[in-house]
């Protein structure tokens, strides 16, 4: 009787506290089996190529014959070659069109409607997101038609008597880069709107009432209440769109191929050409390392600067 109760007392806490072998969790070699399939593919086709790219960036290599170690020379030429600098400059211009403009448009729109209840929100969200789900090649084909000499933009210009402005928008040295950039603005503005509208709907309406009692007008209200509350959403939008802007290969390849001349050449395109057309593999690898670091630094800075205080 006493023995039985004692053993019960001894057993009960042992099971719940898990002082012996825990029921689940802890370490076992068999756990590696669960990770193995995924991590093997990931290591082989993501991490290892990354290491190799970093190694290639120190070589002078055409991809076929014997490679030669050249130290930092490829990086020096990335940072001193005027052509390369111009191309990275185009990348920064793309950030304005792909990231800054869509975020500003989204904020402007959200400022107009923070205080109303939106009807059919689900439908608007679905439609505004459409540009995000279309294949970039399809987007490029659509916009090539819109920008074409006999396309809708020039048709409208002719209609309103501005024939002098009509042109092949993607083939003109003055307008090609802007035209490509505006495609990016179109792709991303809906994403920003949907993110910001979602964020604004979560703002406590009492904050607006308080601001009004303090005599704030619509503009002050936006800067005092809406903008600070949207920090998280702005950060997400910028991280996505800046990455998008710097990885802009598909749209350029399928609209202008970097032309006319080199006026729409962007970093990704330069890397592709170096690696697979002119076979300057070391230089292309160095450029892709620089591009990757640029993306990491920019997205890191954005998240840090816009981190919400709470």
């Amino acid at each position, binding site marked *: 009787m006493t023995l039985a109760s004692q053993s019960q007392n001894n057993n009960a806490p042992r099971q719940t506290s898990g002082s012996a072998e825990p029921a689940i969790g802890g370490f076992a070699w068999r*756990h590696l089996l669960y990770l193995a399939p995924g991590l093997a593919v*990931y290591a082989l*086709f993501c991490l290892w190529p990354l290491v190799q790219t970093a190694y290639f960036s120190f070589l002078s290599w055409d991809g076929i014959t014997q490679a030669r170690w050249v130290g930092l020379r490829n990086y020096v030429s990335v940072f001193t070659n005027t052509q390369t600098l111009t191309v990275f400059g185009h990348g920064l211009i793309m950030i304005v069109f792909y990231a800054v403009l869509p975020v500003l448009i989204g904020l402007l729109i959200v400022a107009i409607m923070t205080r109303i209840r939106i009807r059919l929100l689900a439908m608007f969200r679905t439609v505004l997101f459409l540009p995000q789900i*279309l294949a970039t090649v399809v987007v490029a084909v659509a*916009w090539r038609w*819109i920008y074409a000499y006999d396309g809708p933009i020039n048709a409208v210009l002719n209609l309103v008597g501005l024939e002098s402005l009509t042109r092949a928008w993607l083939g003109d040295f003055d307008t090609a880069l802007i035209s490509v950039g505006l495609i990016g603005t179109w792709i991303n503005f809906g994403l920003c709107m949907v993110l910001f509208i979602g964020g604004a709907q979560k703002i406590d309406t009492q904050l607006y009432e308080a601001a009004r009692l303090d005599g704030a007008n619509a503009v002050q209200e936006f800067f005092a209440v809406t903008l600070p509350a949207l920090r998280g959403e702005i950060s997400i939008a910028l991280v996505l769109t800046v990455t998008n802007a710097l990885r802009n290969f598909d749209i350029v390849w399928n609209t202008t191929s970097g032309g006319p001349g080199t006026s729409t050449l962007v970093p*990704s395109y330069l890397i592709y050409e170096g690696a697979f057309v002119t076979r300057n593999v070391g230089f292309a690898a160095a450029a892709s390392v620089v591009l990757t670091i640029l993306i990491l630094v920019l997205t890191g800075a954005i998240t840090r600067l816009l981190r919400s205080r709470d």
Partner: protein
Amino acid sequence: MESRKEVIAGHAVLIIGALVALYPFVSVALHALSPAPGSAATGWTLENFIGAWTRGGFSRSLWNSALVAFSVVGATAVAAVLAGYVLSVLKFRWRVFVFALLMIGLVLPSEARIIPLYNFFSATGLLNSYWALILPQVASSLPLATFWMANYFSQLPESLAEAAALDGAGEFDILRHIYAPLGMSAVMTLSCLIFLYTWNEFMLALVLMPDNVAVQTAPLSLSFFAGNERTTEPEVIAAAAVLVALPVVIAYFLLQRRFMSGLLEGAVK
């Protein structure tokens, strides 16, 4: 609190935004439906679609796209459920290290691995095969997928696994009978997202399957088809673009909830 003027202005802006978002695709669709120069048809016609389908080989490339996308989705989902389970529920000892490794892949652009991938597949003779597109995309989808599943599993009550373990269920049984069925909804949302990315992938397809029409995916075929503008009428190219976009657009409208939550949650992560 809301004034009538504000309601009207707000919705007017939304409608304009929606029209701008819709216009390019609608415009291309209408262009595809109008007769090409030299055609006998008047009014709307489907002959551009027939032309694109037969001349562009889109029956082949749409099938290739579907094969690649479903393979990537299936393989990634299985690998991510296994890895997510061991990382969150079984609390794998070096999980912080594994998460840190996966974090790298979350932000890695294709440009950073395209050259070695090309070398690897050309050395192994797998260039211009389905493998060349499937394996790298499983690898690049895996970080997001693993974080997704680990995050989902960790939100489930721990008592689930403990109760099952007390009943004598092994770790794999617990995954198979409890966690995997419960995670199906998260897997579906995730699959939509990965399907979308894989279907639309262009750069990897361009570099890794450039010369074999038999395995090329739909976006790549469209790009080559549209590049021959001198021999192909713009109306037929427009029809080809609609053909390539349509499967995703239909899936998107049918499963819009999953896509929306996937895209928004994917963004947050």
